[in-house]
Each structure stands twice: as C-alpha cells, then as structure tokens.
C-alpha cells in the first residue's frame, strides 16, 4: 500500500484539528512540510527535463532542490519555462524554504516554544505551496504534451 502527498497533508490537518499536545503540533508541522516536499517531486522531474538541472541524491537533497527552485534562472532559453513561470518556480522555492524553517524548529528545536500558530501557519503555507506546485506542473505537462 502506498500513500500520496495529499495523504500527508490531510494527516497534518487532522492532527492539527484534534491536537491537544505540543508534540502533536510538531508532528503536524513536519507532515505539512513533507506533503509539499513530495508534491514537488513531480516538478523536480519536469525541471530536469526542461533545464537539465538535476537534484542529486546526496545528503542535503532537500536544501539542494529548494535552492534550485528559489534560484531558478529567469531566462532558460526554453519555450516551456517562460520568465513568468520561472518566477513561479522561484516563489515555490522560497515558500518551501519558509516551511522548512518551521519544520526545522518543530523537529530539531525541542527546547523552543512551538505553538498552534507556528503549526497553523505551516499548514496554510503548505496548502498554498501545493496549489502553486500542482498548477505549474499541470502547465508544464500541457506544454510537454502539445
């Protein structure tokens, strides 16, 4: 049996809705980040094809992919990634980095306060990032198919 990024996102929302403990909020925040991370797998694959930039499978793969998105060149000389779409890809990278910051705090900074607000902002941010990723993937796939 397998799961999807959507399952992870739904899971984070359900833990948040039912949460009573800080550890649950932290778990929800972490799942929200991984939902975005897995959602971005498809975008990463599409961009390997379009720009020739592949994320390696070495350590630091998360930050490598995020930086690849956030620093995506605005002019790739390729029709399917227009400057406007390149800006969207950059925005996704910046957004993922912000959510990663919340997730880092949730998973590694156990002595720091972690509130329901921290968690909710992550979930809201994940929701918006997932929307943007699926939108841009769909556009890139349409161009590829045509």
């Amino acid at each position, binding site marked *: 049996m397998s799961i999807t990024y959507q399952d992870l996102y739904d899971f984070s929302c359900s833990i948040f809705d039912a949460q009573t403990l800080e550890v649950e909020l932290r778990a929800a925040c972490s799942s929200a980040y991984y939902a975005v991370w897995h959602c971005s797998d498809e975008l990463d694959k599409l961009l390997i094809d379009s720009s020739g930039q592949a994320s390696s499978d070495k350590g630091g793969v998360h930050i490598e992919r995020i930086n690849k998105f*956030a*620093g995506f060149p605005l002019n790739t000389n390729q029709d399917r990634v227009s400057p406007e779409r390149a800006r969207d890809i950059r925005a996704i*990278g910046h957004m993922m980095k912000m959510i990663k910051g919340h997730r880092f705090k949730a998973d590694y900074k156990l002595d720091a306060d972690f509130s329901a*607000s921290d968690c*909710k902002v992550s979930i809201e941010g994940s929701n918006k990032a997932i929307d943007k990723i699926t939108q841009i993937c769909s556009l890139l796939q349409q161009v590829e198919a045509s």
Partner: protein
Amino acid sequence: MPVKQSIKSQLFDRLNEALARGRHNLTAFEIKGFERDAKALLKVDTIQGYIAMGSVSSLKMDVDESIRWHELALKSAPTSFEAIFNYAASMAGLGKFSVARNLTNRLLEPLKSEPATLSQTGHNFLLSTGQINKALKYCSSHMTEPLINVLTSSQLSDEEIEPYFDALESIIIKSKVSVSLVDLIVDEDDECIYLTQYVSASPEQAGSLSMELAEALSCLELSSKAVRHFTVTLNAA
C-alpha cells in the same frame, strides 16, 4: 520601603510590556490609556513626552503620526540614545525597516569603539531589521555558536540580507500588520539561517502573507549566497 516609580519609567515599562505582547493583543481602551499618560508626560518632560507619543502612535499603527512625534524628539535631542532607539523600534514595528536601519547606524556610531555593549533588546532589534552581522559585532555575547559558524562560512553580508527585508517591508505596510517579535534559528547541517518575524495576523493571514513574500522575492535578483543561506519566515504572533 519601595521607591515610587516616576511617571516616565512607569509609562515606558508599560509601553515595553505592551510592545512585547503585540499590538493586536491590546484593547482600544488600553491604547487610549497610554495616549492619556503620554500626553500627561508631555506636560512635564517634553522630550520624553514626544518619544512616548511616537511609541503610542506606533501602537495605533499610525505611521505618519509616529514619525511626526519621533522627529520632534530627535529635533530637540539629536544625539539622545533613547530618542533614536525608540524611533527605530517604532519604525521596525511598523515594518519600515529601511528607516529603522538608517536610524540604527546613528545609534551605533558612538559604540564603534566599544562593541558588544548593546542589550538583549538591542540584539533583537538589530535582528528584526535584518542586521545580523551588526548584531554579531555589537552583541556577540547574545549570539549562538552555530549562527557565528554559518555566518563565517557563508560570508553572508547584511547588504545581501537587506533585499529580503525590503520585500517584507512592502508586504507589511500594505497589509497593515505590525511586527512584534523576532526569532532566529540556525540549521548547521544545511548552513541555513531562518529568521522568523511574528506579525499581528491570524495564522491564515500569515500563511497568505508568506506566499506574497515568496512571490515578491521571486522578482528580485538576490545573491546566490543569500538564496542558499538565508530566509525570512513569517508567523502569527
């Protein structure tokens, strides 16, 4: 026998406490009370009264009034640490980071020969306006070792961090939210600095503002070092 606090110190203690709580947690009644006390102070101590009125105006999110009062204080006492510091703090709280940064330079000028003399408040204030390296220079005792390591290895300058705050400034001013707290965490493995600004917004609004910030950043030509090592996150206070 306890010593009775002066009107001035009582008011500034309460104002500092209110700023720490966040503007959105204050009632109109409380703000009115601050305004009344600031006006009373104005009658007995003009400069302190100007400063207090400037701070109260920032609590009311009235940028123009806050600037007007703080400018009056500065005109009367151009080199006063309190006048400059509170002006800069009000501007940083209102999201006018560029004004706050310029004021900070005036504040730090006399301290050039004696770094590490600013308080924890000064440290947080420098961080909240994106002056991480300045905070390191003037408040080294408040900085963590991982942060110093990341800054040293990345050689990330405050000038490279500034565009993040310029993008943030436009969003904060447009959405009429204020900044109350700042938090800084460092991921040593990925050599990343995450600076969180807490704003007077609901978590839903903060999530939307984060996306706006990401979109604004996507239009800027940021240095690759800054993209790699630094980010500002937003959170609901």
